[in-house]
């Protein structure tokens, strides 16, 4: 018996979210072997061993040079059969969101997506997941023989568990996806928003795109990514990929600093799973303060420069 994990990559590197998925599997493996399936090449393949992979299956099929969710799902099904795996773990990022439902569909499996805790096996196989855009949790029992879990990024502690996995080449009949990939445009940001553990975000309170300098500087000093509210992206003050909220991206960093954002419920739906929320707003009645851990009632143009100065004196960006 073993637990199979999809080790997703980006730019020929194992993705941080794959390490989380490996660690998740390793933490409840209880003696079962943790097997990682890797599609293509990764220059840091040994990092899978750091978080508990006992074995790595590597697919070198030329069809997988592009992201082909259907083919990866077929490969995972074949690998699960070959390894006798009854549990498959993904990250609930854009890769897992694409592949996991396909695997559930072709295996008649039971999928819980967005797991925030390890499975509870006291009475069956129950996984806790976030629902209602972070406003509640659902303890979901998987009855199917094939149990599939996708793990919410930055939600379950990643613990090192050094192993020295053997790498085996794996082949399977993948068939054809009928998707022809024409090109990619990767974001230029050094720190992609969805992966940042600190985020500084700003809204209409900043009054115009020309004022974003202080937000970018504060983010730099804190080692944080930048984000914005929906009106700001709608007015093209900031790029659309920075829009966090119900219809933009949902993020769950350790620290979310919101400057000049009132905290409409649609915005909160995208950020309410952040571990610590700081709100800076001139309006003491801004609804965001109700969801905040720390608040400053004040003018961003006075408060933020002082925060930058303080962050510099604490030398935070060097951490």
């Amino acid at each position, binding site marked *: 018996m073993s637990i199979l994990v999809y080790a997703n990559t980006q730019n020929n590197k194992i993705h941080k979210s794959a390490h989380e998925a490996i660690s998740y599997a390793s933490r409840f493996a209880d003696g079962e072997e943790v097997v990682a399936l890797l599609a293509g090449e990764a220059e840091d393949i040994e990092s899978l061993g750091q978080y508990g992979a006992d074995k790595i299956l590597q697919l070198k099929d030329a069809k997988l040079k592009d992201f082909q969710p259907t083919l990866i799902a077929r490969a995972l099904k074949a690998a699960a059969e070959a390894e006798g795996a009854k549990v498959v773990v993904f990250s609930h990022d854009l890769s897992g969101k694409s592949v996991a*439902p396909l695997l559930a569909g072709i295996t008649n499996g*039971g999928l819980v997506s967005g797991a925030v805790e390890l499975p509870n096996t006291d009475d069956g196989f129950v996984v806790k997941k976030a629902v209602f855009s972070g*406003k509640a949790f659902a*303890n979901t029992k998987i009855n199917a023989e094939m149990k599939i879990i996708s793990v919410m990024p930055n939600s379950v502690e990643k613990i090192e568990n050094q192993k020295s996995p053997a790498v085996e080449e794996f082949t399977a009949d993948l068939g054809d996806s009928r998707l022809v990939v024409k090109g990619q445009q990767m974001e230029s940001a050094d720190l992609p928003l969805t992966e940042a553990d600190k985020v500084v975000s700003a809204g209409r309170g900043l009054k115009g795109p020309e004022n974003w300098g202080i937000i970018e500087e504060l983010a730099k000093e804190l080692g944080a990514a930048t984000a914005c509210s929906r009106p700001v992206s709608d007015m093209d003050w900031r790029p659309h990929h920075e829009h966090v909220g119900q219809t933009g991206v949902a993020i769950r960093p350790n*620290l979310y600093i919101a400057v000049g954002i009132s905290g409409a419920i649609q915005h909160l739906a995208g950020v309410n799973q952040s571990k610590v929320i700081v709100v800076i707003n001139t309006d003491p009645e801004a609804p965001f303060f109700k969801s905040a851990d*720390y*608040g*400053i009632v004040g003018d961003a143009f006075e408060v933020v420069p002082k925060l930058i100065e*303080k962050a510099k004196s604490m030398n935070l960006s060097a951490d």
Partner: protein
Amino acid sequence: MKILVCISKVPDTTAKIAFTDNNTQFDTNGVQFIINPYDEWYALVRGLEIKEAQGGSVTVINVGGADNDPTIRKALAIGADEAVRIDHNPKDALATAQQIANYAKENDFDMVLCGKETIDYNGSQVPGMIAALLDQPYVSNASKLDMEGNKATIQRDIQGGKESLEVETPFVLSAAKGMAEARIPNMRGIMAARTKPLNVVEASDSSNQTEVVSYELPPEKGDCKYVEADNPGELLELLRNEAKII
């Protein structure tokens, strides 16, 4: 183009989330229901735009009870030609996908469009499962869809960026922001929706591979701790020494 758009009924974004029956049922008391925004704003509207440009039809499909009919009528008011409700209360996404896939198999659609996730269960599961059950190509998190004959040019969100790709019909797609702009139904649409067909179809067999055994609300957020605006540096001290996150 013969287009099938899957619509889910979800609590309005501003609904108070509470549970009854020892935290096993969602409390619908006082909750207003809407079409899942990703299904309505992006999948349905883009489907209508393609039909308007190329001809064809847009059918909306929902799996649920008769209490879903007013929500389905709204999709007809926005412009769908007809609606299908499969009379079934599914316990999970796979059961929902099986119902939709079984209907789609019998009715040959050129494309099946869904929203990228629902705002209640946030699973992003149904569209991929439909694609797997129909054995059709699947494009997830698409932010652009253009048709030329039976060839689709699509942009999708991938981890860290965007990707452009091509696929021929038939296919299944999940729609994200950027695909289209929301449409507000006008009076003519609302009047027309009353007489458009809403066909109730008997459920086919489906499995229940997962079930929610209980719900929980997150722990109450403590009070916001305020820092004086003339000494904001204290905030960073608190984040370091108290919250221990910087």
